[in-house]
């Protein structure tokens, strides 16, 4: 392991992707749960609870994609065509969902249409990201410097399972977010969703975790060979701990604990993924150093990123701080 520019950039992009998954995850989760909320008033409250922050959450997706293009052009050039169909569907889902936020308030007659655009778009985005993740973990066929597989290689039983897993997982983030941010009947409903999606999420994490090492012998050795197992064993134990905190918090009716525990599940799964993959950026076989742009490029953009990204994080933290606590339901928020 060398602490060089490629390593730093891998860290920056890994951070951007994680920030994206947990931040956009809960607001996509609201979209996934949207059709299950029967009252129009509840839907309004749910949407308002994410209105101030969702756009910033999506920022990380663009930073992650743009960063990958600049820092690891070879990885960007191989992975994106390999995941063509799910990525295009994801982008279209994001378009629908993004404009629904705004258009929904500009029409009475057409509101139900934009409600469906919001729910459908969010679900498609989550499903496609999960499928893309599964296809990525499974490995991408490469010949020379290009993707060499077919355009349906992404569709496998494993990728479908990861697709469903991400929909359920985002729903859990959304449900625990609502539990934290709302009161009354909506909160009770969200707690029930959180229980159901929590059980589903933990089960699916288990299935995917047990399945992954069998996809590739290298994954197996990174997890189970000695001495690696000394470092890797705490991860599943921590997952069990986070699951206990989730269900315990939900049962005790706590506000913040279930959401924090759900975030913990995501962070731990992400760390687990990192253990399987590092130092590869395109599994199997292409490492971050093979895919990295020359130092001159990495250094040039790093200057800007080191100045601007902390400022952006600061502003976002401020936004979350300002909107902490419960959404005020009694206020005529949208009249």
């Amino acid at each position, binding site marked *: 392991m060398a602490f060089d520019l490629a390593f730093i950039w891998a860290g920056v992009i890994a951070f951007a992707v994680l920030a994206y998954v947990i931040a956009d995850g809960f607001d996509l989760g609201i979209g996934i749960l949207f059709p299950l909320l029967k009252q129009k008033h509840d839907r309004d409250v749910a949407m*308002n609870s994410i*209105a*101030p*922050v969702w*756009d*910033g959450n*999506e*920022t990380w*997706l*663009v*930073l992650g*994609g*743009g*960063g990958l*293009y*600049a820092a690891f*052009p070879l990885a*960007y*050039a*191989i992975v*994106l*065509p390999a995941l*063509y*169909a799910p*990525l*295009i569907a994801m*982008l*279209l889902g*994001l*378009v*629908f969902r*993004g*404009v629904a936020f*705004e*258009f929904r*308030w500009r029409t009475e007659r057409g509101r139900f249409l934009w409600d469906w655009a919001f729910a459908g778009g969010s679900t498609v985005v989550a499903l496609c990201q999960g499928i893309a993740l599964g296809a990525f973990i499974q490995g991408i066929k490469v010949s020379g*410097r*290009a*993707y060499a597989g077919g*355009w349906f290689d992404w569709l496998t039983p494993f990728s479908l399972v990861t697709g469903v897993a991400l929909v359920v997982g985002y729903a859990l983030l959304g449900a625990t977010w609502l539990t934290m941010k709302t009161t009354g009947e909506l909160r009770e409903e969200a707690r029930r969703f959180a229980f159901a999606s929590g059980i589903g999420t933990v089960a699916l994490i288990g299935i995917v975790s047990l399945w992954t090492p069998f996809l590739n012998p290298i994954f197996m050795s990174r997890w189970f060979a000695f001495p690696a197992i000394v470092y890797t064993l705490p991860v599943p134990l921590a997952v069990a701990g986070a699951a206990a905190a989730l269900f315990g918090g939900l049962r005790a009716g706590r506000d913040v604990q279930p959401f924090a525990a759900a975030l913990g599940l995501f962070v731990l799964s992400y760390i687990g993924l990192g253990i399987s993959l590092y130092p590869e950026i395109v599994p199997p076989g292409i490492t971050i150093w093979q895919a990295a*742009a*020359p130092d*001159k*490029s990495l250094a*040039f*953009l790093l200057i*800007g*990123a080191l100045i601007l990204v902390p*400022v*952006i994080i600061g*502003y*976002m933290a*401020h*936004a979350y701080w*300002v*909107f902490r606590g419960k959404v*005020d339901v*009694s206020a005529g*928020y*949208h009249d």
Partner: protein
Amino acid sequence: MTEFLDALVLARLQFAFTMACHIVFPAFSIGLASYLAVLEGLWLLTGRDVYLQVFKYWLRIFALVFGMGVVSGIVMSYQFGTNWSVYADKTGAVIGPLMGYEVLTAFFLEAGFLGIMLFGVRRVGRRLHFAATLLVAIGTLFSAFWILSANSWMQTPAGYAVNAAGQFVPDDWWKVVFNPSFPYRLVHMVLACYLTTAFAVGGVGAWHLLRAPANAGARVMYSMALWMAALVAPVQLLAGDQHGLNTFAYQPAKVAAMEGDFETREGAPLILLGVPDADAATTRYAVEIPRLGSLILTHEWNGEVRGLKAWPRSEWPNVTILFFCFRIMVGLGFAMIGLGLWSLWHRWRGSLFAAPWLQRAAVAMGPAGFAALLAGWLVTETGRQPYTVYGLLRTADSVSPLGAPAVAGSVAAFVIVYFAVFGAGLFYLLRMAGKAPQPEEAEPQAGIPTRTAGITPAPALEPHPAAGLSS
């Protein structure tokens, strides 16, 4: 082989379509951001409320336009990889950081100042609010700076080396960023954004003046827009000419196609109209002015202008598209200058607001900037063909290894979704512009999520003693 060609054509079609849908939004927001800064500055300077009224009117439209620009822009940032993966691999080390700076600039701006600009008039005081508006305007120009630098590098690559893997790598960042065509393109494009906005604003103002001739807000829009037409449109003619000379120096085949010149001649004529026929390598029904072509391009009566036949056919761009789009752009440019002169005449006679035919012409010219912008963009990008990086990387060698059916499917999906989404957006925009400016213009409503509120719109929704959520 034919299937591969189809996939290439489809990928180009998809990029052109999604880019054409995207480019109009940032162009309009760049222009509107500067216009809003001028309006607020005038309000602070003169204290006339009508400027604030017009400011608020266009602020709401700016919010929607900017939002649609962000949504359509996310697609663009991924399309280089999905559809142009070989290009991405080869250029990422050079173009990637330029686009990275564009993204960082845009987000820095969104995070910091958009929220204040949109919702903060009563919150932060006039001076600070004006500062935020100015920063947003400057920020949009910075975004334009970086994205046009990247675009110009594709047209006139400089400051690079090629490594063992065949990738372009940066050698001298200064030369990369300030590559030969960049300054000309930047000036030409920013002026185009300003003119596009001016004619849209002038068209809306004229539309309302025709119905309510005394409307003060509409008068301000109309008068300011026509000043822009009178002053900036001629400047754009000069900037365009300089940009053309730069293109003639670095991409002479592009200029030959724009002019419809197939033969290399000394003392070449300027072809005004005609129908270029690439197969026969001639421009039919040409209406030409002798020697003017050489005079414009070489500043000599007998200067040599190379025709397309000087290059093998495999180097030719699509002559028909270039020839006609160039004439649409230039024609609209002269129409803009004409409208500006016409308005000067009425201004001098003191009949600016009592000239219904001028107002009707201004309404008709409302979309002219958008049309000229798209035509000009088609000229420069189609003229870069058959290369993505001019002279170095062919378009056919840039495309992702995808099957034609996969790309055909995504093209169809983009067309359907974009027409639905941006069609609805255009409808809401026109409905907003159809309402006449009122003395008491509302600000963007606090509490309603507005995409442009930026990524941290805290000022928009933050409870405040004067205008809190629960009030």
